[in-house]
């Protein structure tokens, strides 16, 4: 069913450890691809929403520099940030700009150039991942938060390290088929189990890696969308929620409550349930996160996420295929571009462009994108018809 706002264009740079171009040049690659195939000129783009976790940028206030480089000078532009979910925040803002009638076409530009930071600068920022007043003085890090979720899930449901490793085995299979992924090598259960401990119980290969990358999504109003493309992908549901930034403020550690809330809001808005989703992208920043996400999204009951994976229901051909682009574990995690990259994959699935990883006749897709250790969550439901 046609909705008020559509995604009409998607583009992505390669995700890589070191892109060796400037942030504006990186965004330009994604913008060119997004504009390719639609009858749209830059002058028709009414505004741009630039998405970045700006603590990683050398450029203060990147919106001006990037929008100028994309030939959007003169148009409204500003930056939004919610850590790893920055570009899902951007999508939400762009939707509102169109739905409100302020603009007919809006570009969402998500990027991060993680390689701009020296390792000392990265370590300094890593030390400020938690609440700087109450957590950072103890040496808190982002991986440590997810490791604590893993330990809680293990204690509550008997989940094992080997079961977590199976998430990466699956995602690396699909990552090997994604030529824009930073890590295209298939990894074995044994390699994951033998990788060095980073934050127990998580090991090196349970963790995604930060990479450079950019993604552009072009959103348009219904009438405009129908004029410029044969394959608009409609926004059916937008859910967003937040939770306490300090772990001490959380009710549970084996589940991410803002993800449960965001998914319910998105399902309600779309008028569907988890059983109606044909294909999904979920935020697998760590192996444990994907298991928890299955449960938070209602793909599996609490404690049954591992079974869903082991029954191969989240593989291509299963009940609910997940992360068929390799996920963050294979693509890498360019913070401000990550959510946009997930949306791009679902848009391409719904357009039927995914070749060997195409879900047959995919009509409804879901994107789940977390920001920080479950501080923010955005769930987006997209539809072909």
């Amino acid at each position: 069913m046609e909705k008020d706002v559509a995604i009409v264009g998607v583009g992505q740079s390669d995700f890589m450890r070191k892109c060796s171009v400037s942030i504006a040049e990186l965004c330009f690659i994604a913008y060119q691809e997004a504009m390719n195939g639609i009858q749209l000129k830059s002058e028709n783009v009414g505004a741009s929403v630039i998405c970045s976790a700006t603590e990683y940028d050398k450029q203060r206030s990147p919106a001006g520099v990037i929008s100028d480089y994309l030939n959007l000078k003169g148009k409204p532009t500003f930056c939004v940030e919610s850590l790893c979910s920055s570009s899902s925040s951007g999508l939400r803002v762009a939707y509102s700009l169109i739905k409100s009638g302020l603009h007919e076409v809006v570009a969402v530009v998500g990027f991060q150039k993680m390689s701009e930071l020296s390792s000392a600068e990265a370590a300094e920022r890593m030390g400020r991942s938690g609440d700087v007043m109450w957590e950072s003085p103890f040496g808190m890090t982002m991986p440590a938060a997810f490791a604590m979720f893993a330990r809680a899930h293990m204690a509550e449901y008997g989940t094992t390290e080997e079961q977590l490793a199976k998430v990466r085995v699956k995602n690396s299979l699909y990552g090997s088929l994604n030529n824009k992924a930073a890590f295209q090598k298939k990894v074995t259960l044994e390699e994951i189990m033998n990788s060095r401990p980073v934050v127990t119980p998580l090991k090196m290969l349970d963790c995604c890696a930060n990479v450079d990358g950019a993604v552009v999504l072009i959103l348009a109003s219904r009438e405009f969308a129908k004029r410029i493309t044969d394959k608009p992908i409609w926004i059916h549901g937008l859910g967003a929620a937040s939770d306490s930034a300090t772990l001490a403020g959380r009710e549970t550690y084996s589940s991410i409550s803002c993800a449960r809330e965001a998914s319910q809001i998105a399902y309600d808005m779309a008028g569907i349930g988890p059983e109606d989703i044909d294909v999904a992208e979920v935020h697998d920043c760590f192996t444990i996160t994907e298991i928890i996400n299955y449960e938070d999204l209602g793909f599996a009951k609490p404690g049954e996420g591992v079974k869903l994976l082991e029954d191969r229901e989240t593989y291509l051909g299963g009940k609910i295929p997940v992360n068929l682009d390799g996920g963050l574990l294979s693509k890498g995690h360019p913070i401000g571009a990550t959510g946009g990259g997930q949306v791009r994959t679902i848009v391409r699935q719904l357009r039927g462009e995914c070749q060997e990883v195409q879900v047959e006749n995919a009509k409804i897709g879901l994107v789940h994108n977390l920001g920080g250790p479950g501080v923010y969550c955005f769930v987006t439901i997209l539809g072909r018809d």
Partner: protein
Amino acid sequence: MGFDQFGMKSFVSETKAAEFVTYLEEGKVMTTRCKKCQEITFPPKMDCRRCGPSEMEWFEIKEIGELGTFTTVMYGPAGFEKETPYTLAVVRFPVGIRVFGQMDRKIPIDEIKVGMAVKVVALKVSQNRFSYQFERV
């Protein structure tokens, strides 16, 4: 006593709750309760999110808590490179709060288990730095 004396490394120096560190120096781990609605929080707050203008009172966390979850960090951020491995944990206290912090380094890592009974104890990190840690009961 300033809040910049809290923990192994501090990032924030000014807060209305800086008294927390003074109490740590006295050997007490304290948090706050709203005198109006009685809500207890951790971390301590000098403002009540429910009542708005209110008066807060400090009380000591003396209860025995239960280890909710933990992780042992093998690679630390800036300032913690030489501290590894260290174990971070969240402890649930019956009074209805959860406290984030580090486990006592004297507990062998393989003896740390979810559900174990612990107490929170004030700790003098160095001449001018104060913190707390979770110790086995």
